[in-house]
Protein backbone atom coordinates (compact mmCIF):
# COMPACT_ATOMS: atom_id res chain seq x y z
CA UNK A 1 0.00 0.00 0.00
CA UNK A 2 2.86 2.37 0.84
CA UNK A 3 4.56 1.79 -2.47
CA UNK A 4 1.25 2.07 -4.34
CA UNK A 5 0.65 5.48 -2.75
CA UNK A 6 4.16 6.52 -3.69
CA UNK A 7 3.65 5.36 -7.27
CA UNK A 8 0.36 7.26 -7.56
CA UNK A 9 1.95 10.47 -6.20
CA UNK A 10 4.80 10.07 -8.69
CA UNK A 11 2.51 9.43 -11.66
CA UNK A 12 0.06 12.24 -10.82
CA UNK A 13 2.89 14.78 -10.49
CA UNK A 14 4.54 13.55 -13.69
CA UNK A 15 1.21 13.60 -15.53
CA UNK A 16 0.43 17.10 -14.26
CA UNK A 17 3.85 18.34 -15.39
CA UNK A 18 3.47 16.86 -18.86
CA UNK A 19 -0.23 17.76 -19.08
CA UNK A 20 0.26 21.46 -18.38
CA UNK A 21 2.86 21.63 -21.13
CA UNK A 22 0.81 19.62 -23.59
CA UNK A 23 -2.61 21.23 -23.00
CA UNK A 24 -1.30 24.78 -23.15
CA UNK A 25 0.81 24.16 -26.22
CA UNK A 26 -1.32 21.93 -28.44
CA UNK A 27 -2.83 24.99 -30.16
CA UNK A 28 0.36 26.99 -30.41
CA UNK A 29 2.16 27.36 -33.71
CA UNK A 30 5.87 26.67 -33.94
CA UNK A 31 8.06 29.78 -33.75
CA UNK A 32 9.82 30.93 -36.90
CA UNK A 33 13.32 29.69 -37.67
CA UNK A 34 15.16 32.96 -36.94
CA UNK A 35 13.45 32.92 -33.55
CA UNK A 36 14.67 29.40 -32.89
CA UNK A 37 18.34 30.30 -33.16
CA UNK A 38 20.06 29.67 -29.82
CA UNK A 39 20.68 32.69 -27.64
CA UNK A 40 24.37 33.52 -27.86
CA UNK A 41 24.33 37.23 -27.10
CA UNK A 42 23.56 38.00 -30.73
CA UNK A 43 26.35 35.82 -32.11
CA UNK A 44 25.80 33.06 -34.64
CA UNK A 45 26.22 29.44 -33.56
CA UNK A 46 29.41 28.20 -35.20
CA UNK A 47 29.43 24.69 -33.81
CA UNK A 48 26.91 22.16 -32.65
CA UNK A 49 26.13 22.62 -28.95
CA UNK A 50 26.92 18.97 -28.27
CA UNK A 51 30.41 19.30 -29.71
CA UNK A 52 33.42 18.50 -27.55
CA UNK A 53 33.07 19.97 -24.11
CA UNK A 54 35.94 19.60 -21.71
CA UNK A 55 34.56 18.33 -18.40
CA UNK A 56 37.28 19.69 -16.16
CA UNK A 57 36.04 18.14 -12.95
CA UNK A 58 36.20 14.62 -14.35
CA UNK A 59 38.69 13.21 -11.76
CA UNK A 60 36.37 14.45 -9.01
CA UNK A 61 33.53 12.31 -10.37
CA UNK A 62 35.79 9.25 -10.12
CA UNK A 63 36.57 10.08 -6.50
CA UNK A 64 32.84 10.36 -5.86
CA UNK A 65 32.30 6.76 -6.96
CA UNK A 66 34.46 5.54 -4.04
CA UNK A 67 32.26 7.45 -1.62
CA UNK A 68 29.02 6.35 -3.21
CA UNK A 69 30.06 2.73 -2.69
CA UNK A 70 30.82 3.61 0.90
CA UNK A 71 27.27 4.95 1.38
CA UNK A 72 25.94 1.48 0.59
CA UNK A 73 27.74 0.14 3.65
CA UNK A 74 26.73 3.11 5.70
CA UNK A 75 22.95 2.68 5.46
CA UNK A 76 22.81 -0.72 7.23
CA UNK A 77 25.62 0.43 9.53
CA UNK A 78 23.49 3.36 10.74
CA UNK A 79 20.69 1.01 11.80
CA UNK A 80 22.87 -1.29 13.95
CA UNK A 81 25.20 1.45 15.16
CA UNK A 82 23.90 1.93 18.73
CA UNK A 83 23.53 -1.83 19.19
CA UNK A 84 27.15 -2.54 18.16
CA UNK A 85 28.63 0.42 20.04
CA UNK A 86 32.38 1.08 19.89
CA UNK A 87 32.98 -1.76 17.45
CA UNK A 88 30.89 0.07 14.83
CA UNK A 89 32.71 3.33 15.58
CA UNK A 90 36.09 1.72 14.99
CA UNK A 91 35.05 -0.05 11.81
CA UNK A 92 33.58 3.00 10.13
CA UNK A 93 36.33 5.23 11.54
CA UNK A 94 39.02 3.15 9.83
CA UNK A 95 37.04 3.05 6.60
CA UNK A 96 36.48 6.80 6.54
CA UNK A 97 40.12 7.44 7.47
CA UNK A 98 41.28 5.47 4.42
CA UNK A 99 38.86 7.37 2.16
CA UNK A 100 39.95 10.69 3.67
CA UNK A 101 43.53 9.93 2.64
CA UNK A 102 42.12 9.71 -0.89
CA UNK A 103 40.57 13.18 -0.56
CA UNK A 104 43.82 14.68 0.74
CA UNK A 105 45.76 13.04 -2.10
CA UNK A 106 43.20 14.26 -4.64
CA UNK A 107 43.41 17.76 -3.20
CA UNK A 108 47.19 17.75 -3.49
CA UNK A 109 46.90 16.60 -7.10
CA UNK A 110 44.49 19.46 -7.84
CA UNK A 111 41.45 17.29 -8.48
CA UNK A 112 39.08 19.88 -7.02
CA UNK A 113 40.48 22.73 -9.10
CA UNK A 114 38.51 23.84 -12.09
CA UNK A 115 40.67 25.89 -14.39
Amino acid at each position, binding site marked *: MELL*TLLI*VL*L*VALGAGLG*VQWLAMCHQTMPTYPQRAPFLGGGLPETHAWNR*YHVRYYP*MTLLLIAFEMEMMFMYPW*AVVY*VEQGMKAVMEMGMFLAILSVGIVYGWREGV*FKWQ
Partner: protein
Amino acid sequence: MIVSELLLPVFVVLATLAVGAYLVGVIDGAIGAALGAPRGQSAWLAPLTQGAWLLTQQANTTEAPDWRAWRLAPALYLALAATGLAVVPWSPTLIPTDLTTSVVLWGSVEALATVVIFLHGWSANTLLALIGAYRYVALGLSYILISMFVLIGVALPAESLQFSQVVASQAEMWNVIRQPLGLPLFLIVGLGMTFWGPFNLADSRDLAGGTASAVSGPPRLVWNLARAAMLVAFSGVAASAFLGGWLGPWLPGPLWMVIKMLVVLAVLLLIGRLVPRVQPERCVTLMWVVLLPLSFIDLIWAGMEALL
Protein backbone atom coordinates in the same frame (compact mmCIF):
# COMPACT_ATOMS: atom_id res chain seq x y z
CA MET B 1 -9.84 1.98 4.18
CA ILE B 2 -8.93 3.00 0.65
CA VAL B 3 -9.79 6.61 1.51
CA SER B 4 -7.56 6.80 4.57
CA GLU B 5 -4.65 4.83 3.14
CA LEU B 6 -4.60 5.96 -0.47
CA LEU B 7 -6.64 9.06 -1.26
CA LEU B 8 -5.84 11.09 1.84
CA PRO B 9 -2.02 10.67 1.56
CA VAL B 10 -2.08 11.50 -2.16
CA PHE B 11 -4.24 14.57 -1.51
CA VAL B 12 -2.05 15.77 1.38
CA VAL B 13 1.14 15.51 -0.68
CA LEU B 14 -0.21 17.18 -3.82
CA ALA B 15 -2.04 19.94 -1.94
CA THR B 16 1.09 20.73 0.10
CA LEU B 17 3.14 20.80 -3.06
CA ALA B 18 0.77 23.23 -4.83
CA VAL B 19 0.13 25.55 -1.88
CA GLY B 20 3.77 25.38 -0.81
CA ALA B 21 5.07 26.30 -4.26
CA TYR B 22 2.69 29.30 -4.29
CA LEU B 23 3.88 30.34 -0.82
CA VAL B 24 7.50 30.13 -1.96
CA GLY B 25 6.64 32.75 -4.58
CA VAL B 26 4.81 34.90 -2.02
CA ILE B 27 7.57 34.74 0.63
CA ASP B 28 10.30 35.34 -1.92
CA GLY B 29 8.43 38.37 -3.27
CA ALA B 30 7.82 39.73 0.22
CA ILE B 31 11.50 39.33 1.17
CA GLY B 32 12.52 40.98 -2.08
CA ALA B 33 10.17 43.92 -1.44
CA ALA B 34 11.46 44.27 2.13
CA LEU B 35 15.04 44.35 0.82
CA GLY B 36 14.20 47.08 -1.67
CA ALA B 37 13.57 45.21 -4.93
CA PRO B 38 11.23 47.14 -7.22
CA ARG B 39 7.67 45.99 -6.52
CA GLY B 40 4.90 45.88 -9.06
CA GLN B 41 1.82 44.39 -7.48
CA SER B 42 1.02 42.78 -4.15
CA ALA B 43 3.18 39.81 -3.15
CA TRP B 44 0.06 37.63 -2.90
CA LEU B 45 -0.93 38.15 -6.52
CA ALA B 46 2.47 38.27 -8.19
CA PRO B 47 3.12 34.47 -8.38
CA LEU B 48 -0.36 33.88 -9.84
CA THR B 49 0.06 36.63 -12.44
CA GLN B 50 3.42 35.29 -13.46
CA GLY B 51 2.04 31.76 -13.69
CA ALA B 52 -0.87 32.85 -15.88
CA TRP B 53 1.48 34.86 -18.07
CA LEU B 54 3.80 31.87 -18.59
CA LEU B 55 0.84 29.59 -19.26
CA THR B 56 -0.41 31.73 -22.15
CA GLN B 57 2.99 32.78 -23.47
CA GLN B 58 4.28 31.38 -26.74
CA ALA B 59 6.80 28.64 -26.03
CA ASN B 60 10.01 29.16 -27.97
CA THR B 61 12.05 26.23 -29.19
CA THR B 62 15.55 25.70 -30.47
CA GLU B 63 16.49 24.36 -33.87
CA ALA B 64 16.93 20.70 -33.02
CA PRO B 65 16.17 19.94 -29.39
CA ASP B 66 15.79 16.46 -27.95
CA TRP B 67 12.02 16.93 -27.75
CA ARG B 68 11.03 14.09 -25.48
CA ALA B 69 13.79 14.70 -22.96
CA TRP B 70 13.18 18.45 -23.06
CA ARG B 71 9.52 18.13 -22.15
CA LEU B 72 10.11 15.29 -19.72
CA ALA B 73 12.78 17.00 -17.59
CA PRO B 74 10.55 19.66 -15.90
CA ALA B 75 7.77 17.13 -15.30
CA LEU B 76 10.22 14.62 -13.88
CA TYR B 77 11.72 17.23 -11.55
CA LEU B 78 8.20 17.97 -10.29
CA ALA B 79 7.57 14.25 -9.82
CA LEU B 80 10.80 13.92 -7.83
CA ALA B 81 9.69 16.77 -5.56
CA ALA B 82 6.34 15.04 -5.00
CA THR B 83 8.09 11.73 -4.21
CA GLY B 84 10.38 13.46 -1.74
CA LEU B 85 7.50 15.15 0.02
CA ALA B 86 5.58 11.87 0.23
CA VAL B 87 8.01 10.42 2.80
CA VAL B 88 7.69 13.41 5.15
CA PRO B 89 5.62 12.50 8.24
CA TRP B 90 2.97 15.00 9.41
CA SER B 91 2.00 13.34 12.70
CA PRO B 92 2.45 9.90 14.30
CA THR B 93 -0.58 8.69 12.36
CA LEU B 94 -0.62 10.89 9.23
CA ILE B 95 2.36 9.70 7.18
CA PRO B 96 1.72 9.61 3.40
CA THR B 97 4.20 6.76 2.83
CA ASP B 98 5.87 5.34 5.91
CA LEU B 99 8.63 3.35 4.21
CA THR B 100 11.23 1.73 6.47
CA THR B 101 13.90 3.15 4.15
CA SER B 102 12.54 6.65 3.60
CA VAL B 103 15.95 8.28 4.24
CA VAL B 104 17.37 6.18 1.40
CA LEU B 105 14.47 7.21 -0.83
CA TRP B 106 15.18 10.88 -0.16
CA GLY B 107 18.85 10.22 -0.99
CA SER B 108 17.82 8.77 -4.33
CA VAL B 109 15.64 11.83 -5.02
CA GLU B 110 18.70 14.02 -4.48
CA ALA B 111 20.81 11.86 -6.79
CA LEU B 112 18.17 11.74 -9.53
CA ALA B 113 17.67 15.52 -9.33
CA THR B 114 21.20 15.88 -10.72
CA VAL B 115 20.30 13.62 -13.65
CA VAL B 116 17.08 15.52 -14.39
CA ILE B 117 18.68 18.97 -14.24
CA PHE B 118 21.49 17.82 -16.52
CA LEU B 119 18.87 16.40 -18.90
CA HIS B 120 17.08 19.76 -18.94
CA GLY B 121 20.21 21.62 -19.99
CA TRP B 122 21.46 18.97 -22.38
CA SER B 123 18.25 18.41 -24.33
CA ALA B 124 17.82 22.07 -25.33
CA ASN B 125 20.78 21.78 -27.71
CA THR B 126 22.10 25.27 -27.06
CA LEU B 127 25.46 26.24 -25.68
CA LEU B 128 24.54 28.22 -22.56
CA ALA B 129 22.04 25.61 -21.41
CA LEU B 130 24.68 22.91 -21.79
CA ILE B 131 27.27 24.88 -19.82
CA GLY B 132 24.68 25.34 -17.04
CA ALA B 133 24.02 21.61 -17.05
CA TYR B 134 27.71 20.68 -16.79
CA ARG B 135 28.20 23.20 -14.01
CA TYR B 136 25.28 21.72 -12.16
CA VAL B 137 26.71 18.20 -12.34
CA ALA B 138 29.88 19.43 -10.61
CA LEU B 139 27.76 20.94 -7.85
CA GLY B 140 25.34 18.00 -7.64
CA LEU B 141 28.09 15.40 -7.31
CA SER B 142 29.70 17.50 -4.59
CA TYR B 143 26.72 18.20 -2.35
CA ILE B 144 25.32 14.68 -2.40
CA LEU B 145 28.03 13.32 -0.08
CA ILE B 146 27.51 16.12 2.43
CA SER B 147 23.80 15.42 2.41
CA MET B 148 24.30 11.70 2.93
CA PHE B 149 26.68 12.08 5.87
CA VAL B 150 24.39 14.60 7.54
CA LEU B 151 21.34 12.36 7.07
CA ILE B 152 23.20 9.29 8.36
CA GLY B 153 23.94 11.47 11.39
CA VAL B 154 20.24 11.86 12.15
CA ALA B 155 19.62 8.15 11.49
CA LEU B 156 22.16 7.09 14.15
CA PRO B 157 20.22 8.09 17.30
CA ALA B 158 16.97 6.87 15.69
CA GLU B 159 18.53 3.45 14.88
CA SER B 160 16.38 3.50 11.79
CA LEU B 161 16.24 4.86 8.24
CA GLN B 162 12.59 5.80 8.67
CA PHE B 163 11.72 9.50 8.95
CA SER B 164 8.93 8.82 11.44
CA GLN B 165 11.49 7.10 13.71
CA VAL B 166 13.92 9.96 13.19
CA VAL B 167 11.25 12.40 14.40
CA ALA B 168 10.29 10.15 17.34
CA SER B 169 13.96 9.98 18.42
CA GLN B 170 13.96 13.78 18.86
CA ALA B 171 11.33 13.73 21.63
CA GLU B 172 13.89 14.77 24.28
CA MET B 173 15.99 17.11 22.23
CA TRP B 174 15.80 18.23 18.62
CA ASN B 175 18.64 17.31 16.30
CA VAL B 176 19.30 20.97 15.53
CA ILE B 177 20.67 21.32 19.09
CA ARG B 178 22.03 17.79 19.41
CA GLN B 179 23.96 17.97 16.13
CA PRO B 180 24.63 21.70 15.65
CA LEU B 181 26.52 21.29 12.35
CA GLY B 182 23.76 19.27 10.73
CA LEU B 183 21.13 21.84 9.83
CA PRO B 184 23.48 24.52 8.39
CA LEU B 185 25.13 21.89 6.16
CA PHE B 186 21.76 20.49 5.13
CA LEU B 187 20.48 23.98 4.22
CA ILE B 188 23.45 24.36 1.87
CA VAL B 189 22.45 21.04 0.31
CA GLY B 190 18.90 22.36 -0.11
CA LEU B 191 20.08 25.49 -1.89
CA GLY B 192 22.24 23.31 -4.12
CA MET B 193 19.44 20.87 -4.91
CA THR B 194 17.10 23.61 -6.07
CA PHE B 195 20.02 25.69 -7.45
CA TRP B 196 18.68 28.63 -5.49
CA GLY B 197 20.45 31.86 -4.50
CA PRO B 198 24.17 31.40 -3.81
CA PHE B 199 24.24 27.96 -5.43
CA ASN B 200 22.32 28.90 -8.55
CA LEU B 201 24.96 27.65 -10.97
CA ALA B 202 22.61 25.91 -13.41
CA ASP B 203 20.16 28.71 -14.24
CA SER B 204 22.32 31.69 -13.33
CA ARG B 205 22.13 35.15 -14.85
CA ASP B 206 25.72 35.01 -16.06
CA LEU B 207 24.61 32.24 -18.43
CA ALA B 208 21.50 34.22 -19.48
CA GLY B 209 19.34 31.69 -17.64
CA GLY B 210 21.52 28.58 -18.00
CA THR B 211 19.54 25.37 -18.54
CA ALA B 212 16.34 27.44 -18.85
CA SER B 213 17.87 30.02 -21.22
CA ALA B 214 15.93 28.68 -24.21
CA VAL B 215 12.78 27.69 -22.29
CA SER B 216 9.68 29.88 -22.24
CA GLY B 217 5.93 29.51 -21.89
CA PRO B 218 4.32 26.45 -20.27
CA PRO B 219 7.57 24.40 -20.00
CA ARG B 220 9.12 27.33 -18.13
CA LEU B 221 6.09 27.43 -15.84
CA VAL B 222 6.47 23.74 -14.99
CA TRP B 223 10.21 24.18 -14.46
CA ASN B 224 9.77 27.15 -12.09
CA LEU B 225 6.96 25.33 -10.29
CA ALA B 226 9.09 22.21 -9.90
CA ARG B 227 11.95 24.22 -8.41
CA ALA B 228 9.64 25.80 -5.85
CA ALA B 229 8.04 22.40 -5.15
CA MET B 230 11.47 20.86 -4.58
CA LEU B 231 12.22 23.63 -2.09
CA VAL B 232 8.98 22.76 -0.27
CA ALA B 233 9.84 19.03 -0.21
CA PHE B 234 13.30 19.87 1.07
CA SER B 235 11.90 22.07 3.85
CA GLY B 236 9.65 19.17 4.90
CA VAL B 237 12.64 16.81 5.11
CA ALA B 238 14.76 19.39 6.95
CA ALA B 239 11.93 20.07 9.44
CA SER B 240 11.49 16.38 10.24
CA ALA B 241 15.21 15.54 10.30
CA PHE B 242 16.40 18.46 12.43
CA LEU B 243 13.51 20.48 13.87
CA GLY B 244 11.56 17.68 15.50
CA GLY B 245 8.86 17.32 12.83
CA TRP B 246 5.42 17.11 14.41
CA LEU B 247 6.77 17.44 17.98
CA GLY B 248 5.79 20.53 19.93
CA PRO B 249 3.52 21.70 22.73
CA TRP B 250 -0.15 22.86 22.56
CA LEU B 251 -0.71 22.78 18.81
CA PRO B 252 -1.53 19.61 16.82
CA GLY B 253 1.33 17.85 14.98
CA PRO B 254 0.56 18.83 11.36
CA LEU B 255 0.30 22.49 12.36
CA TRP B 256 3.75 22.36 13.96
CA MET B 257 5.03 20.79 10.79
CA VAL B 258 3.60 23.63 8.68
CA ILE B 259 5.15 26.26 10.97
CA LYS B 260 8.56 24.58 10.88
CA MET B 261 8.47 24.16 7.10
CA LEU B 262 7.61 27.85 6.68
CA VAL B 263 10.51 28.82 8.95
CA VAL B 264 12.94 26.71 6.90
CA LEU B 265 11.56 28.17 3.66
CA ALA B 266 11.86 31.74 4.97
CA VAL B 267 15.48 31.14 6.03
CA LEU B 268 16.37 29.58 2.66
CA LEU B 269 14.71 32.37 0.66
CA LEU B 270 16.36 35.03 2.83
CA ILE B 271 19.78 33.42 2.20
CA GLY B 272 18.88 33.28 -1.49
CA ARG B 273 18.27 37.03 -1.58
CA LEU B 274 21.17 38.10 0.65
CA VAL B 275 24.15 35.90 -0.26
CA PRO B 276 25.81 36.38 -3.65
CA ARG B 277 26.40 33.46 -5.98
CA VAL B 278 29.51 31.39 -5.30
CA GLN B 279 32.01 31.11 -8.12
CA PRO B 280 31.50 27.83 -9.97
CA GLU B 281 35.28 27.31 -10.13
CA ARG B 282 35.58 27.52 -6.36
CA CYS B 283 32.40 25.64 -5.58
CA VAL B 284 33.89 22.14 -5.97
CA THR B 285 36.87 22.98 -3.75
CA LEU B 286 34.59 24.56 -1.16
CA MET B 287 32.37 21.49 -1.05
CA TRP B 288 35.09 18.83 -0.92
CA VAL B 289 37.76 20.54 1.14
CA VAL B 290 35.70 22.59 3.62
CA LEU B 291 32.14 21.30 3.84
CA LEU B 292 32.78 17.55 3.43
CA PRO B 293 35.25 17.41 6.39
CA LEU B 294 32.70 19.42 8.38
CA SER B 295 30.08 16.77 7.59
CA PHE B 296 32.56 14.10 8.79
CA ILE B 297 32.83 16.00 12.07
CA ASP B 298 29.05 16.18 12.24
CA LEU B 299 28.81 12.42 11.77
CA ILE B 300 31.43 11.72 14.47
CA TRP B 301 29.65 14.17 16.77
CA ALA B 302 26.31 12.48 16.14
CA GLY B 303 27.87 9.05 16.68
CA MET B 304 29.46 9.98 20.01
CA GLU B 305 26.25 11.67 21.12
CA ALA B 306 24.20 8.58 20.26
CA LEU B 307 26.46 6.28 22.29
CA LEU B 308 26.71 8.45 25.42
